[in-house]
C-alpha cells in the first residue's frame, strides 16, 4: 500500500512539476517585463524553475527535457524578436548550456541525498532488529535458547521456513531447530548424538540443491552452525535481509564462543585453586613427615654411638635407622607420585648434563650400598637432556636399589647411558636371578609385587617401579623391563633429547 502511494506521488511529480514550474516562470517573466525589470532577471527566474523541476523529478532525462523546454520558452517570449524563435543568437546557446548543466548537477545532488537517506534508513532498521535480538540473546539462559531466538527472528524476518543445525561447544552437544514463519515447528529432527552425525547432517543439507545454505564458523575455523531455507524463498529476500541474517548467525556463534571461553576460564581457575590447595597439603605432609623421621634417625644414631658394637642394642638401633630410611624413600615416592598424578606441570624440565646426573647417582649409591660394585658407562661427549633432574635421579636410585636387593653382594651392577636416535637411553642391568616371565607385564603397575613373595611382604618394590614408570612417562619417554639372555634383570628407559612439551 505504502509503496503504491509513493509511486503514485512520484508519477504526479514527474508529469506535472515540469509544465507547472515553466508556466509559473513565464508568468513571473511577464510580470517583470510589464514592470520593466531588466531581462537578465527573467533568465534567472527560468533557471530557478529548472532547479525546482530537477529537485522534484530527480531524473536526468526529464531534467534535460525541461531545461530545453525552459530555454525555448524563454527564447520565444522574452528575447527579441518576441513570440518567435531565434536560433542563431550565441547567448541562446549559452543559456541553454547553463540550464542543462544546472539541472544535471541538481538532479545528481538530490539523488545522492536520497540514496544516502535510504541507506541510513536501512541501517537503522538493521540495527533495531539486531539490537532486539542481541537483547534477547543476552538474557538467554543456554546456548540452545540463543540459537532458537536467532532462528526464530530470521524466520520471522524472511517470512519463510528456516532450519538450523549447530554444535553447542559449551558441553559439546549438537542441536537442530526449525521455524516456519516465526513459529516453532517440532515435527522434525532426531537428536544429533555425536560429531559424525553432525557432519553427516551438514553434508546432506549441503548437497541438497533446493536449499540455500549459510555456514557460520568458529574462531578455529570449524563449522559450528548451518542455516538452511528453501532456495525459492531465499531468492525473495533482499540483500539487506541477507546481511542481517548473516550478522544474527555470527552474533549467535560469537556469543556461544564467549560463554564457552568464560566457562573454560572459570574451570581453569577452580582447577588452579584445587591444585594449589593440594600442593600446599602435600608440602605440609612432606614437612610433617620429615621432622619426626629426622628425630627417629638422629636419635637412633645417638643410641648407636652410645652403645658398644657388641651390644644387641646397637643392632636394634641400626634396624630402626634402616626402617626409617625405607620409610623416607617410600614417603618421597608417594609424595612425588601424588604430585605427578595431580599436576602434569609438576615436572620442571631443564637441560641437564648426563655426567652430572650420573655423578650424583653414583655418590648416593655408594652411600646406600657401600662396597657394591657399580660399573658405569656414559658417552665421552657432553649430553644435555631435558629432564627434571631430581625425579630422574630418584628413578635411577630406585632401579639401582631394586638391583641391589635382588642380587648377591658380589654381583656386578651396570648403569649405562647411550645416545640413541634423538633420545637418551638409560639402562640398569644386574646379574641376579632376573624377573619371572609372568611378572614382566605387570611389573610397573601400582602396588604390584613379585609373585615370589606375598603382596604384603614388607619392602616390596611395587611403588618404586610405579614411580619410575610415572616419571618416565611424564617426561615423554618409555620404560621397559626384560631379562638378559645370560641372566639378570635389565631395566631400560629413554628420554627425548628434544623438549617438545615446554615449547
Amino acid at each position, binding site marked *: 500500500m505504502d509503496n503504491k502511494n509513493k509511486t503514485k506521488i512520484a508519477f504526479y511529480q514527474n508529469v506535472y512539476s515540469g509544465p507547472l514550474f515553466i508556466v509559473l516562470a513565464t508568468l513571473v517573466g511577464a510580470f517583470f517585463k510589464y514592470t520593466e525589470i531588466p531581462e537578465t532577471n527573467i533568465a534567472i527566474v527560468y533557471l530557478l524553475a529548472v532547479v525546482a523541476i530537477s529537485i522534484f523529478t530527480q531524473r536526468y532525462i526529464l531534467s534535460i527535457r525541461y531545461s530545453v523546454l525552459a530555454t525555448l520558452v524563454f527564447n520565444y517570449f522574452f528575447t527579441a524578436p518576441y513570440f518567435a524563435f531565434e536560433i542563431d543568437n550565441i547567448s541562446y546557446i549559452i543559456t541553454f548550456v547553463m540550464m542543462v548543466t544546472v539541472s544535471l548537477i541538481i538532479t545528481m545532488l538530490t539523488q545522492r541525498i536520497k540514496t544516502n537517506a535510504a541507506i541510513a534508513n536501512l541501517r537503522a532498521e538493521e540495527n533495531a532488529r539486531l539490537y532486539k535480538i542481541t537483547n534477547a540473546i543476552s538474557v538467554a539462559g543456554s546456548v540452545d535458547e540463543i540459537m532458537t531466538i536467532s532462528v526464530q527472528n530470521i524466520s520471522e524476518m524472511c517470512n519463510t521456513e528456516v532450519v538450523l543445525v549447530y554444535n553447542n561447544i559449551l558441553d559439546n552437544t549438537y542441536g537442530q531447530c526449525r521455524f516456519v514463519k516465526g513459529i516453532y515447528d517440532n515435527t522434525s529432527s532426531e537428536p544429533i548424538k555425536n560429531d559424525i552425525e553432525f557432519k553427516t547432517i551438514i553434508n546432506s543439507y549441503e548437497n541438497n540443491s533446493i536449499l540455500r545454505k549459510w555456514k557460520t564458523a568458529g574462531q578455529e575455523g570449524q563449522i559450528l552452525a548451518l542455516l538452511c531455507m528453501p532456495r525459492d524463498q531465499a531468492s525473495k529476500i533482499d540483500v539487506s535481509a541477507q546481511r542481517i541474517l548473516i550478522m544474527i548467525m555470527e552474533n549467535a556463534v560469537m556469543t556461544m564462543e564467549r560463554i564457552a571461553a568464560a566457562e573454560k576460564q572459570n574451570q581453569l581457575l577452580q582447577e588452579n585453586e584445587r591444585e594449589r590447595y593440594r600442593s600446599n597439603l602435600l608440602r605440609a605432609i612432606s614437612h610433617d613427615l*620429615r621432622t619426626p623421621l629426622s628425630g627417629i634417625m638422629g636419635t637412633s644414631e645417638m643410641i648407636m654411638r652410645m652403645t658398644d658394637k657388641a651390644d644387641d642394642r646397637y643392632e636394634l638401633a641400626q634396624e630402626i635407622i634402616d626402617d626409617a630410611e625405607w620409610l623416607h624413600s617410600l614417603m618421597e615416592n608417594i609424595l612425588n607420585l601424588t604430585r605427578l598424578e595431580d599436576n602434569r606441570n609438576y615436572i620442571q624440565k631443564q637441560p641437564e648434563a648426563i655426567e652430572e646426573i650420573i655423578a650424583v647417582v653414583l655418590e648416593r649409591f655408594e652411600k646406600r650400598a657401600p662396597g657394591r660394585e657399580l660399573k658405569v658407562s656414559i658417552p665421552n661427549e657432553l649430553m644435555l637432556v631435558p629432564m627434571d633432574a631430581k625425579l630422574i635421579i630418584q628413578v635411577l636410585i630406585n632401579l639401582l636399589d631394586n638391583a641391589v636387593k635382588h642380587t648377591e653382594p658380589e654381583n656386578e651392577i651396570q648403569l649405562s647411558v647411550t645416545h640413541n636416535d634423538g633420545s637418551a637411553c638409560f639402562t640398569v642391568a644386574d646379574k641376579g636371578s632376573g624377573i619371572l616371565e609372568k611378572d614382566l607385564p605387570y611389573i610397573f603397575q601400582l602396588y604390584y609385587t613379585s609373585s615370589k613373595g606375598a603382596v604384603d611382604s614388607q619392602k616390596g618394590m611395587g611403588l618404586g617401579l610405579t614411580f619410575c614408570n610415572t616419571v618416565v612417562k611424564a617426561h615423554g619417554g618409555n620404560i621397559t623391563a626384560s631379562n638378559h639372555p645370560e641372566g639378570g634383570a635389565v631395566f631400560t628407559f629413554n628420554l627425548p633429547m628434544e623438549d617438545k612439551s615446554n615449547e
Partner: protein
Amino acid sequence: MNDTKENILVVEDDMQIRNFICYSVRNEGYNCKIAVTGTQAINAVLNESVDVIILDLGLPDIDGIDVINEIRQWSEIPIIVVSARDQDKEKAYALDMGADDYLTKPFSSTELLARIRVALRHVKRRGNSIKQTVIQVGGLRLDMDKHLVFLDEKEVHMTPMEYSLLSLLLKNRGKVVTTAAIIKELWGPGYGQDTQALRTLMAGLRRKIELNPAKPRYIMTEIGVGYRIVEE
C-alpha cells in the same frame, strides 16, 4: 666455659632433633648453645661468642630466612640450614640470602658434622690470611695474580669464562654457589635463568680438570641448586 672449644649455636624448635644435634655436636668436642626461636638466635649471635650456626627454617616466631637476613647484616658467621623444606627453590633462596650450606631433613649426624667441619675451616681461613692470591685444593692450584691454573703442577689452559667459573667456585670453596649466582656473576644480571650455557661451560671445565666427569674429584654438583668445590 672452655675457650678452646668452638661454639655451635643450634636453632631448632623441635626438641628431639635439637637433642640429637646437640648430642652429636658435643660428642665431637664442640660447645653447644641452644636457641628455640629466631629472636633468641639473633640475640645469641649478638651477645655470645658463636662460631657456626645450625638453623632450622621453620621457627615459631620468625622465618629462618629472615634470621639469615638479619644476621648477614652484620656478621659473616657460617650458617648451616637444616630444614624439612625440600624444594630446590627454597634451598637456592636460602643459599642466595647468605646461608653457607643446606641440609634437608632427614639427614645423618655424620653428614652434619662433616658440614660443620667445613664451615669451621672457613672461619679459620678467613681469620688467617688477609688476602689470598693462590688457592690450592688437592692437586688443583689457582694463581690469581698470574691468572693461571695448575693441575698436579702442570699448567692447564683455560678460556676466560672457564677461568672465571673456576675462580668463583674456588673463592667460595666448601660452599654451594647457586646456579643463579653463577649465571649472574659470569653473564650478568640480564641473562635470566638459562642453565644450558652454564652446563656446557661446566662440562668443558670438568674435562680439563677432572679425570672422570662422572666421578668428579673437585667440582661437585648439587642437583637443582648449584655447584661446590670440595675442600679436602
